[in-house]
């Protein structure tokens, strides 16, 4: 019997509705690819800047944060409005083609060790249930899906400890703020 306490969704103020949405979302949806990068692999959002000329409406997008753009390159007007934004996943990355289940499970093991301090031998349990595949990480939700890759991917995303906004994954510090945790941006992904 495992005596370790695993945090729940309520501990981190994550609504159950969000969990259910991720569990039942379509496999072709780019949301899963975004969540996998964001929650499991901790890929930080890169800030891009869109500069819009107030006079002629010319739009220039800069991907380097500290690049200067003080006047419109088309009409030389100084009235330029800068808007920061994160790239949206309209391209719908093909997770199943790009990421294998083993890489996801290994990364989750690394995250587990980092967060809880020690690793258990069997954090992932999988089995076939009729024609569907069942995947569950020891600290997360059970996911049943027709494809093993998608089942393991969704099960990895749905581990509550990955959603702790008071844990800084980059600096490996607990009780520090995770400035890469943006629920509004995440919700925006599934409205598209």
């Amino acid at each position, binding site marked *: 019997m495992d005596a370790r306490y695993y945090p729940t969704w309520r501990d981190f103020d994550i609504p159950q509705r969000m969990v259910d949405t991720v569990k039942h979302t379509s496999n072709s949806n780019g949301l899963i690819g975004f969540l996998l990068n964001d929650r499991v692999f901790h890929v930080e959002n890169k*800030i891009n800047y869109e500069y819009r000329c107030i006079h002629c409406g010319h739009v220039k997008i800069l991907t380097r944060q500290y690049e*200067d753009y003080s006047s419109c390159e088309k009409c030389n007007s*100084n009235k330029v409005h800068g*808007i920061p934004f994160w790239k949206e996943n309209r391209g719908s990355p093909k997770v199943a083609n790009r990421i294998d289940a083993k890489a996801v499970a290994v990364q989750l093991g690394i995250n587990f060790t980092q967060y809880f301090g020690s690793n258990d031998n069997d954090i992932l349990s999988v089995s076939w249930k009729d024609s569907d595949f069942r995947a569950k990480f020891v600290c997360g939700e059970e996911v049943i899906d027709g494809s093993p890759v998608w089942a393991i991917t969704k099960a990895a995303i749905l581990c509550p400890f990955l959603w702790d*906004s008071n844990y800084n994954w980059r600096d490996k510090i607990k009780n520090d*703020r*995770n400035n890469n945790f943006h*629920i509004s941006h995440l*919700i925006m992904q599934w*409205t598209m």
Partner: protein
Amino acid sequence: MGNLLNEYRRRHNSNFIWGSSDGVCFFNKNRKPAAICLLTDMCRAGTVCDYCSGRQPRFVCEVFTLNRWGSREPLKILAHDHIDVDIDVSKFMSKLDANFVPYHAKDQKDIEAWVWNFFLQLQPFSRCDSYIEFAKKQDKKDSNTMRSLEQMIWAATNMPEIFSVYYARFYQLSVIGRNYLLYK
């Protein structure tokens, strides 16, 4: 940078708010979200401010409040001023309105809930029947932050165009690429 300033403020028991490049602070009025204060270093290539043609000091403080109902732009600029970096932002704000109180968030989710509640003052859902049904189902034991996040999910599902207005006009303006300066 924001964390260091907070730590200093906590240890010295001070209410002083330092300006910081790409910083943002939120202010309440009568316990309701009331103003967003953006702190920005002027563009290095520019010598004159695009907004007011001012040159010095180079540090810009802009305060946004809600516009009138039905206006084309949801936010209006209450103040735009060039300030020295060692000026106390809370004093600057209290000169604009003595009732402005800085909002200290616990974590990132509190910030998002604050911005969402700020937006809701402009776009109340209280007259929408489906929202009233949804609100009845919400668990009263949940924290205010969690209830705000649930509302956001409800709005994203039922009224995606309204959620995108919140995202583009409020969230993008005040959160993306900015350091929040007032953590607890």
